[in-house]
């Protein structure tokens, strides 16, 4: 890669070149993996929280064995408009990465025996069934810790494993939408309640467009597992890691609870406004949207100069005026009068030109809103290998997002393969861990245990 691409807009060119040498994605496979001594049994079912958790661990080198029922995980069917690549939907194709795929029927005694034998050798078990389901089958934490005291057992479920709501709703499955609903963030995301121009039918809670409930749950689960592994390295103890995705979301819900504690008031849905920092918003342009900010007094002055609107500065002189729900739609409207005359690229150029002026009054930031197809084209993401195109012998050519841990200089995260068909690794894994092969394996198959 030429230096110009590496340096970009770097303030310190030597630093950029050094950082590139340390974290060059071309060298990933020449480096070791941080978790290559860890074995994970991922029995998650119909939940991308479990799958994302085990993806993270697998990108760091853990050996992850996906346990699916003989018909395959329900998550394989979760795909936009029902689109499938062979036996697998698009969501699963992304999070099947690096994992071995075995089948076993946990409702059968023989299947449970296989699970127990594998769990005895595992460092981590992940599951997403209804709370208490695995326990009722005799393969929950209570039973497994007796045969493997060092085991880290991580169940993930909307209501968690215990507590009033878990008891009441133990028969509910875990879904992204219900995770988001209990995660508080949804209650304060959506079209602005206090903007009179928004039609009433849109004034309701809104989920994040992606599977934010599941991915957040999975992220926290992986974090908890790593903490528990670290503790185990020192103290030798296993433990139960009870992951409830909504708890992961509401501990990221900004000051929603703090504000309630301090003022006994709730935050309304603010849409693209922000009642703690404004302007800090998306504005409409000729060809799409762009972000624009100018919050503190100097930055607001700078923004008003760009807009050539000294009157706005007088109308909303301090942050107090700029933070009210009544004024924000008005300010937004005035900014858009300007930006709607330009394309997003033109707005970026205007702001950049102002920012290069020696007598600028403050900082105004902007960044256009990128549509997915545009993101895929950007040179920066190509240079950083943010996406990889894998030519899989079974699934064909598939483009997925790469590990986001590529920038670890000594133990970078990586993707080795995209996905495996249902039960594709039965022979290898059962042979490797349990010495089960040949007629024994065939027998299990015939009896429907795998």
């Amino acid at each position: 890669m030429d230096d110009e691409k590496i340096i970009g807009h770097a303030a310190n060119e030597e630093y950029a070149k050094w950082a590139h040498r340390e974290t060059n994605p071309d060298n990933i496979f020449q480096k070791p993996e941080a978790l290559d001594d860890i074995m994970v049994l991922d029995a998650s079912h119909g939940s991308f929280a479990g799958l994302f958790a085990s993806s993270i661990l697998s990108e760091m080198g853990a050996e992850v064995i996906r346990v699916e029922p003989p018909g395959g995980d329900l998550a394989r069917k979760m795909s936009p408009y029902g689109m499938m690549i062979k036996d697998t939907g698009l969501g699963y194709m992304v999070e099947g990465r690096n994992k071995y795929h075995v089948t076993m029927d946990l409702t059968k005694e023989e299947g449970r025996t296989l699970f127990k034998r594998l769990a005895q050798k595992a460092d981590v078990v992940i599951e997403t069934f209804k709370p208490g389901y695995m326990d009722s089958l005799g393969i929950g934490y209570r039973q497994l810790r007796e045969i493997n005291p060092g085991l880290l057992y991580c169940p993930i479920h909307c209501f968690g494993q215990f507590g009033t709501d878990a008891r009441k709703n133990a028969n509910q499955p875990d879904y992204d939408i219900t995770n988001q609903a209990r995660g508080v963030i949804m209650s304060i995301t959506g079209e602005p309640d206090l903007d009179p121009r928004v039609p009433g039918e849109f004034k309701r809670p809104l989920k994040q467009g992606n599977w934010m409930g599941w991915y957040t749950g999975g992220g926290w689960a992986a974090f908890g597992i790593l903490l528990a592994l670290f503790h185990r390295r020192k103290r030798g103890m296993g433990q139960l890691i009870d992951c409830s995705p909504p708890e992961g979301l509401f501990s990221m819900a900004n000051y929603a609870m703090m504000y309630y504690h301090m003022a006994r008031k709730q935050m309304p849905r603010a849409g693209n406004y922000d009642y703690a920092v404004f302007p800090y918003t998306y504005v409409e342009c000729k060809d799409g949207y762009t972000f624009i900010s100018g919050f503190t007094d100097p930055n607001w002055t700078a923004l008003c100069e760009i807009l050539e609107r000294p009157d706005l500065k007088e109308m909303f002189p301090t942050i107090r005026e700029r933070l009210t729900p009544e004024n924000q739609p008005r300010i937004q409207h005035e900014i858009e009068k300007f930006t709607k005359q330009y394309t997003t690229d033109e707005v970026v150029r205007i702001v950049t030109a102002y920012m290069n002026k020696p007598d600028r009054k403050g900082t105004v930031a902007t960044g256009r809103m990128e549509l997915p197809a545009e993101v895929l084209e950007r040179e920066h993401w190509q240079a950083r290998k943010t996406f990889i195109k894998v030519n899989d012998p079974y699934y064909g050519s598939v483009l997925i997002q790469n590990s986001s841990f590529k920038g670890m200089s000594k133990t970078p995260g990586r993707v080795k393969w995209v996905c495996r068909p249902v039960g594709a690794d039965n022979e290898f894994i059962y042979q490797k861990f349990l010495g089960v092969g040949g007629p024994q394996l065939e027998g299990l198959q015939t009896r429907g245990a795998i």
Partner: protein
Amino acid sequence: MKEGESYQDFLKGMFDVGQLFDKPEPLKGIRILEVCYVVLGPAACDYLAEFGAEVIKFEGQRGDQMRFVTPYAFFWKNMSPGLEIENHNKYWVGMHMGNPKANEIFLDLVKKSDVVIDNLTPGRMAEWGISYQDLKRINPRIIQLHVSGYGSWGPWTGRASYDAVAQSMGALSPITGYEERGPIKSGVWIADWITGLMCAIAIMSALHHREKTGEGQFIDYLQVENVIRWLDWTWLFTSMEEENRKRAGNRDLAICPSDLFDCSDGWIALAAFSAEEFRGLCEAMEDMELFEKYEDPTSRLEDETAREILKKIGEWTKTKTMGEVEELGSKMGFAATRVLTAEDVYHGEHFRERGTVQTFHDPLYGEMVEEAYPPRLSETPSRIKWSSRPLGFDNEYVFTKLLGMSGEKVKNLQEEGVIFKWNPKIPSHCPPKDWDGKKGMKLG
């Protein structure tokens, strides 16, 4: 396994919140130097601090910007709620980073630390003469994580990023919102919080590698790339269809039914994808014809069909209260819950029992009620010890305990402007008005 003990009773014993402080912390003995500001970097450190890491936070003279970010310009006991939320259990040092004397102090601390985290402009630490190479020379075990919007190299390195920029540059906002309306930003600084989480994960992973090999490392983490990583099937879909993923409101395009519906008294989030769950829902709706027609989950995902099914469910939920649908969900085995607000969680018995919402008494601010970071770990749970602090509040403690500096030396450094405390003219730098000059001071 105790004979006859129920799963719930077993868990209640394991997670007894009364024993929170009698259990060990997984990150005991890990010292982190935080050269961060705003939300992302401080949040990454906060996650680790609530699990026992000792985090020393360095702030510049003007103070972390979050001292000034608060809803409606509201302050409480001189505290900014925007600062409190990503800063617990930390030690607060006011120091002029980049000053040669400050560098000396910083490097002395690096000798006895495990992790350094910064979210400054990429290369800023190198400009100051405290790059990873400098740190590594004096402590080969040190782990340094740098996080920024676009990372330390590449065509866009050096471009500024904010949470809302990351949401839009990473294409989260354009897929969030209603079909017939514009893109919507998250109600919270979600790209900061989730990127902080992945930074904490990267650090944990680096700590594991260090346990095995004794070797530290440098980590370059990209906020916008992190948002991209979290967008599930967006990229594969776009690359296959050569069209952008559409906004779909609360409807899940990959799971049907999964949406937010109107009840007679509010909204209900509901999902039932497997044949069994869908049967339970259709039984509750007394519409077995619907079940027979669409038993196969994949058959429900076709666009027209999905709209038809969601419409039917919406007509049914309108005749029910939220409580009725929730109860039916639990009885019939489909997912159904109302949308919780901060107030619901604050008062929710469930979250108190689990130790997710914790009450503690802060020497400066009195009784605090806050969410402690998940997941709930049975043997090494997270806990909140104290709140955010005035600027430079722990200078004496940190310099005395870790560097053995005498009171006089600390005083001199203060006079030279190398270290400093809160500016009495800026209320959100300061302790509460009624502070007695002693409470909360360590070694005070």
